[in-house]
């Protein structure tokens, strides 16, 4: 078989199955709900019949206009972006040393160390969140230490539980492995020889990190950031369980549309906006990153 034809066959053999699977089990169902954003909610839930009694198709822009004319949804959306951004940065700070340590450790221990990172996340989500409620409870050690310190400065005690702090801590906790794993996958292939060469040329530890390791790890950083920021944007369970009265995120709003207001079209609208915005932000970040990486990174390993 000619080289070109082999390549093309390879292309379809490799991209075909995932493409097909996602088209059938993701794109098709999602399109149903995208269409739903143009329909009216059913009287008692769900959607109104597609063809009404007059024989007309039920299509309108009601839900979309509602979204764009009421500013409160934008405000909640922006708050969610802030929370998701803080979560991503905190995850990056915590995950990087961890991933680096695992990547550089002895072959025998590497797999075990990696498993140890993900092991806690095979326990149920709810009881992990409950564990945080115990840690952050008003009578637990942490709260007593913090409020004791605050009392020394004459400040009123601050609740650690049912607050934005609790929501953020839990968000970071729940998403941490999704930053560690992509970073590790990237850092693992870094060639020690490069770092040794840099050291020989007189670079200190920080310079070696900032000018060699970090730029090379950027694809891993972006992958991890995407896998943390995007899901964190749409989360609702954590604010529900340990959030304060004003910690509503866009995920909560979307859940309410399906599970309280029974307004599926509006829920679809919010979901589409969230998805497009999340992908858009990720795309912008990738573009910026690619430009930065091109200008700053040294020659390929």
């Amino acid at each position: 078989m000619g080289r070109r034809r082999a390549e093309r066959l390879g292309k379809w053999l490799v991209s075909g199955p995932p493409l097909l699977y996602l088209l059938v089990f993701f794109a098709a169902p999602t399109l149903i709900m995208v269409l739903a954003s143009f329909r009216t909610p059913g009287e008692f839930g769900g959607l109104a019949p597609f063809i009404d009694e007059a024989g007309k198709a039920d299509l309108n822009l009601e839900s979309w206009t509602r979204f764009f004319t009421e500013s409160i949804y934008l405000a909640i959306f922006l708050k969610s972006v802030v929370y998701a951004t803080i979560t991503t940065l905190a995850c990056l700070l915590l995950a990087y040393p961890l991933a680096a340590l695992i990547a550089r450790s002895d072959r025998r221990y590497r797999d075990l160390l990696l498993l140890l990172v993900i092991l806690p996340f095979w326990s149920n989500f709810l009881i992990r969140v409950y564990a945080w409620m115990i840690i952050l409870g008003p009578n637990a050690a942490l709260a007593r230490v913090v409020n004791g310190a605050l009392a020394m400065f004459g400040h009123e005690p601050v609740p650690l539980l049912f607050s934005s702090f609790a929501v953020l801590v839990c968000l970071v906790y729940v998403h941490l492995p999704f930053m560690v794993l992509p970073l590790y996958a990237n850092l693992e292939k870094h060639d020690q020889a490069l770092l040794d060469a840099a050291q020989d040329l007189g670079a200190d530890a920080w310079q070696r990190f900032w000018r060699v390791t970090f730029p090379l790890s950027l694809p891993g950083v972006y992958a991890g950031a995407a896998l943390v920021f995007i899901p964190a944007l749409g989360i609702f369970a954590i604010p529900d369980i340990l959030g304060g009265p004003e910690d509503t995120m866009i995920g909560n709003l979307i859940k309410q549309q399906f599970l309280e207001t029974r307004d599926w079209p509006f829920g679809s609208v919010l979901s589409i906006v969230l998805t497009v915005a999340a992908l858009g932000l990720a795309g912008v970040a990738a573009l910026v990153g690619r430009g930065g990486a091109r200008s700053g990174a040294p020659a390929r390993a």
Partner: protein
Amino acid sequence: MKKLLQRAAACALLLATSAFGADQLHLYNWNNYIAPETVKRFEAQCKCEVVQTYYSDNEELLAKLAAGAKGYDVLVPTSNAVQALIKGGQLLPLDKTKLPNTRNVDPAYLNTPFDPGNQYSVPYAMSTTIIGYNDVKMKELGLPTDTWAVIFDPQYLAKVKGRVTVLDSAAELFAAAFKYLGYSANDTDPKHWDEATALIKKARPYWAAFNASSYIKELTVGNIWLVHGYSNDIFQANQDAQAAGRKFHILQGLPKEGAVLAVDNMVIHKSAPRPDLALQFINFMLDGRNSAELTNLIGSGNPNLEARKVIKPELLAYPAIFPPKEYQAKLEQLHDLTPAQRRLRNKLWTEIKAGR
């Protein structure tokens, strides 16, 4: 290769489970809302298997059925959800000839506006949405426990700031606000809704959280001192608190302005695979002894008069579980709203939750 193996395994599993299919009753219920002994007794009687799956909110049930899910025989929705299901044509009419035990039910709970003539549903268990509190703390702070004012009035709230939670449910919270303001819990006047919203916004800074899932834990261990919650949960909280040897009690406070009553009902889904078993089950649960077992287990209210004979006497004495006649007039069941009303309520709720 791996994929092939996976598919084969899945097929084998599917075949295996469907071969089992024979005599199964699929019960879609709240978790811990039927005593295990009751289930076993029914399984012995009908020589069938009761397959239980759970939901934790009426809206979850409604959403799943609205999207077309099938395979459930008996469901246990609350009255307003029954209303939505009936209007949506999701239920099978009940064959009354197979349900002789319906005569055991207190007539006050039959023939409701939700289901005139009980064509589709029979009452199963109930709860009230009231105030739950830590008796030691409330006494210390000198707060009343028989009025919604303690949840809504800043003059009382100032003493419990950060130690109060309210339910994360627009329907329940607005209903409580309406009762406090002297209106019906099912008031639909937009002017009254604005009034209630203003009331809630004034009280919100004092509340620790809008919470329907983890507030009971915090109440039980003493981190939270006052809640807007369900009578069953508050009853359980006290059981747990005493079992843990705490120095306080968790008590139920019936607000004098009135409260919401939630009656859960047994219904049959229109595409139930085994309506015969379903009817058998419903009649079984209407028997006094079987009905009483749930109340004795979790402290739920019970509309079954025959059951009263077998319910623990100390439970019968709880006014929040078995409201006295005078109070019954102040209890209201929530009605389902129209889509326009739901949207308006959601808009107000969003403002409240967004801190505006």
